[in-house]
């Protein structure tokens, strides 16, 4: 048996290998799905979080669009710069100008600034409170501070501070728009990080009406509009609006005066995070280290 076995084994194995090699080869030939092989490769290069921040239902659909050239790699907000370079090198396309967007809150009326007229009692959640007669906040446009956005944020970069306002970690915000979708008061908007002059209020009332409700609210005094370069700002619906397309906005603080004169600090120059998460003590600690 010895010698024959020494022959049978390799023979059988080789023929099995051959047989299935042939079958598979034939299969590849005839059953091949006409799919661009680059799609699979591209998908591998994507982060695979399937977060939807790019606006597609997942990484695979995004990859398909990428290969088709419908979107640019920088559309993926999660991928690191290296990843995006890698992607563009692979796809042979330009990465596209990446303009970092972040979520900004149109309100600065936290617990310390805005007044309550009634006391909401029920489970935590802004929308849950909003549907129960507005949740009791005097300003019905302002932030309820119950943290729906904190829960909704896929990337966990929103945290409620002691003042009851959501602090968005600007460095890590991917502009996925979760907070924009979830906020019952529609307070979040995605803005380019470069647009630093920002009005942190959403109240369409003016004058004392506003100050009776909130000490941080914009009372539509229009001083900022008057002090800013002409044409940069305008009052719309009792709120100042900065026209970034006007070309008048420069990042040197020519608008400092406009900011300085605001009686309620509703207009701000934002370099990084909009609010701070840290108490004064913590801040001192940070400063020391």
């Amino acid at each position: 048996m010895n010698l024959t076995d020494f022959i049978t084994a390799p023979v059988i194995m080789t023929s099995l290998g051959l047989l299935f090699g042939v079958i598979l080869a034939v299969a590849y030939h005839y059953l091949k799905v006409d799919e661009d092989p680059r799609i699979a490769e591209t998908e591998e290069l994507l982060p695979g979080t399937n977060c939807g921040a790019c606006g597609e239902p997942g990484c695979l659909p995004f990859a398909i669009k990428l290969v088709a050239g419908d979107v640019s790699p920088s559309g993926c907000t999660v991928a690191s710069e290296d990843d995006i370079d890698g992607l563009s090198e692979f796809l042979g396309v330009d990465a596209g100008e990446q303009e970092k967007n972040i979520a900004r809150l149109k309100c600065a009326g936290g617990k310390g600034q805005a007044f309550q007229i009634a006391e909401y009692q029920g489970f935590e959640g802004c929308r849950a409170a909003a549907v129960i007669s507005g949740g009791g906040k005097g300003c019905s446009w302002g932030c309820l501070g119950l943290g729906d956005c904190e829960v909704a944020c896929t990337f966990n970069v929103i945290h409620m501070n002691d003042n009851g306002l959501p602090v968005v970690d600007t460095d890590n915000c991917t502009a996925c728009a979760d907070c924009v979708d979830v906020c019952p008061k529609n307070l979040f908007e995605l803005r380019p990080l470069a647009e630093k002059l920002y009005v942190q209020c959403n109240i369409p009332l003016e004058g004392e009406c506003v100050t009776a409700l909130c000490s941080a609210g914009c009372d539509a005094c229009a001083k900022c509009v008057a002090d800013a370069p002409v044409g940069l700002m305008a009052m719309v619906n009792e709120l100042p609006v900065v026209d970034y397309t006007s070309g008048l906005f420069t990042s040197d603080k020519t608008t400092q005066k406009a900011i300085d004169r605001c009686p309620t600090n509703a207009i701000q120059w934002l370099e990084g995070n909009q609010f701070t998460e840290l108490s004064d003590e913590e801040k001192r600690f940070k400063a020391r280290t």
Partner: protein
Amino acid sequence: MSNSFSLGRLFSIGNLFIKGGFSHGVHPPHHKEQTEDLPIQRVPFMKRYVMPLGQHIGIPAEAIVKVGDRVQRGELIAKPKGFISTALHSPVTGTISDVGMHRYVDGSFRMAIEIEADPYATQQFPHAQSSIDVGDMDVGQFIESVQMSGIVGMGGAAFPSHVKYSIPEEQEITDLLVNGAECEPYLTNDHRLMVERPEAVLLGCEILRHQLSAKRVAIGVEKNKPESISQLKKYLTDDMAIDIVPLEVKYPQGAEKMLIKSIYDKELPAGKLPRDIGIAVNNVGTIVALADYFEHGMPLIERIVTLAGPGVHEPANLIVPIGTPIRDVLDFAGGLKDETREVISGGPMMGSPIADLDAPILKGTSGILAFTEKETSRPSEYPCIRCARCLEACPYFLNPSRLALLGKARLFDDMQEKYNVMDCVECGACTYACPSNIPIVQHIRTAKDNLRNRKTSQ
């Protein structure tokens, strides 16, 4: 009480054993004794009135007055803007002091007309057109007329009534159903109306039946209001094609679909309107408002409000001009007790809490109820033990237990896709029945709000 023994529920395999009623539902104590025997009273005129331009679903009216204008009681101050929109009339004689943002009952600010009442003018309704002859109106004129009367549904939803009456060509209304169920605890405004003005109810029915070319009218009244039933029957004459139907006392008997089920034994398909099966449903208050308009030419400028609950000093049924600040109405009834913790507008099962007492009475405000610490301190919430009491309470056969769980987990899409959360009418029966005190309805409301807003934003 839901753990009281009820044969109907014991054998509730589908609807087999129940005829002339609806399945599920709850039996909350009805607490009507406070006000059911109190005759309707008129509140005197106050100093200031606020008329929000949008008091109903649809498009807000458009103000046609400006600050400083003098207006007569009953004068048009805002005209409808579009079809699903109704006119607004001044509830008092006085001067327009503001047209701007004012606090609404739900805590938000809305465009409203503020009127400084003129203390010296006689606050009488000027009988300009003492009655409007409906006899030779065609359908179009009738609908326009109702639209200009400012009448909206008084049953709670405040849906513009003329919209309900505009029946598409291919449909016809065979039955007019008048909702006198008043199944919400504490409220007695419909009851008092039926007791005190049965002729007006019957007259309104006849007018509307005629206009809609309906064959018959049914007035459904819960059996716990025998006086209403007997009063209506007393004034009923043989030439009226009107039936008075006593109904089982069960919450939410007054909900449109339940009423149709109880009276006609028809299940209104989801997403369909009553008119699709040939029925028009109106609250008795709406019917009386119609009667008043066509009999006396009086547009909708006042309504009956029940003031009750353990937190008010003098419970009452009041005729209140629309736009009166709630605080003034309460003050008229002796004000709130000190231990009052929560004031709600509407019934205790479906009403909404009031955040600011300066907000005005609206066309749809059926009651103002004040509750004390005792009612508002709820027993602590326990986890859902899946006891299925909520399922057995839900008249719409939803799965509230699952809805609440999903709501807690914020899986709103699942709530809609798998459990049809949008079919919930927020009647509160489930929450009433839940031994674990889970705020099921609030979870549902939150989810619906989320789903709705998402729909519009995308």
